[in-house]
């Protein structure tokens, strides 16, 4: 069902846990549907210096959280905002069709965390995201 990469990221999730000094936090999903992701970012000089997640959900939800955080860590905010759910799924060597929504959630989680960062900075995130 799951690729080896998915299982690896599920069994040994990268960047798991809360980030004490996060300056942006994104919450996506809802418990009714069975998947919730909380993404913590620490952004400095337009760079994602650190990132972590907490996830309630299935194997794919954990693995996409792990992979997505890995993919944007150390990247510029602009680069991070370009992360697509397809890229996350591909980096995991694919996901079962029924699990593609998890990769969407991961993409959304990253965006939500960055958005929160902008809000805290007093910047209208809509303007940034539109670029």
């Amino acid at each position, binding site marked *: 069902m799951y690729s080896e990469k998915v299982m690896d990221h599920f*069994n040994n999730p990268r960047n798991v*846990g809360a980030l004490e000094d996060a300056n942006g936090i994104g919450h996506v999903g809802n418990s009714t549907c*069975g998947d*919730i992701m*909380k993404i913590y970012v620490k952004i400095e000089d337009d760079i994602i210096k650190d990132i972590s997640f907490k996830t*309630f959900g299935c194997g794919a939800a954990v693995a996409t959280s792990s992979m997505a955080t890995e993919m944007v860590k150390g990247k510029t905010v602009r680069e991070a905002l370009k992360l697509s759910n397809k890229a996350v799924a591909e980096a995991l060597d694919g996901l079962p069709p029924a699990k593609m929504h998890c990769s969407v959630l991961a993409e959304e989680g990253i965006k939500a965390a960055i958005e929160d960062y902008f809000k805290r900075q007093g910047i209208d995130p809509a303007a940034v995201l539109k670029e």
Partner: protein
Amino acid sequence: MTRIVYADNAATTSLSRHALEEMMPYLTKEYGNPSTVYSLGRSAKKAMENARAKIASALGCRPDEIFITSGGTEADNWAIRSAAIMKKDKGKHIISTVLEHHAVLHTLKSLEKAGYEVTYLGVDSAGNISLDELKNTIRQDTILITVIAASNEIGTIMPIAEIGALAREKGILFHTDAVQAVGHIPVNTEEMKIDLLSLSAHKFKGPKGIGALYIKKGLRLPSNMYGGAQERGLRSGTENVAGIVGMAAALEEAVSNMDNNIKKISAMRDRLIDGLLKIPYTRLTGDPVNRLPGSASFVFECIEGESMVLLLDQAGICASSGSACSSGSLDPSHVLLAIGLPHEVAHGSLRLSLNEDNTEEDVDYILEKLPPIISRLRDMSPLWEEKISGKPIK
């Protein structure tokens, strides 16, 4: 991985060694077609009829009331569709429950599309139906009552004898999906006044892909498959002789060991339940007492079932969950919702199902391995953080 603890016997069981031994001749030298007249065919026929007699004796019915099918699903589909067709002139109302397996539920849904009306009896938080509610639900045009004998998900046992008596009194056909019950708890078609009963071999250590429908003598069901007139014309097709022989051997074995098995398995189950209920924010699903000997089913709050199943697999433990992710749909199991669990709690379901092959060491092993898995997933869960801190997540 050092050891395997198989605790998903409600999904399927390993094949009994005795049953396999009985099957082997029919997978090798005894390959005759039972419909033929020469001795190779006659001995296959004899083996098949011998098997049918064993199955009948396990259910307390007559051999000519047993019709072989390819499994529980075929038996359920055949029984329910047939009852609906046979009785349509009397009425189109069917009574069932919210606990049914999809093999029953989706067959009922297809009948609803064809103009039948189905009342699904609700259950209390332990999964028990109310016989009074059943009585009040019966109408002039009620033609069939179909109730699962014991729930595959939460283990609760239904009052089959009482339902049978009521149905017989009212002249309504009674079908029970006894796939989880047969071979595990006493089932007697005569005493329980059952008209139609479905069973599936691989749930009691028989082979996969074989099952049976008990049809009470005198009921004239329409043919399920047309062809060479096997199974007295009702279910054609060259017989799976090895499968039939294996099913009968496994059932005979299960029934003759049933008393001991029930004692042994339910003791293990109770130890498992007691041990796991020590984990905070954990609930047993299903009735604590009135449940299948092997069934230990739970919800663990703030975590998701598939994750548990995957991490248990890493530890060599096979288990299952009724979470949305496990079911492949967006909703968690209809049964978990029916016993009143909120969606987010139902997602955290885990079913451990034991049988006579499990050992006390298996229970120890699960009790050792599962709690740290729950902790690990809760540590990762934003819902748990919220629950513990008392702060809402957003």
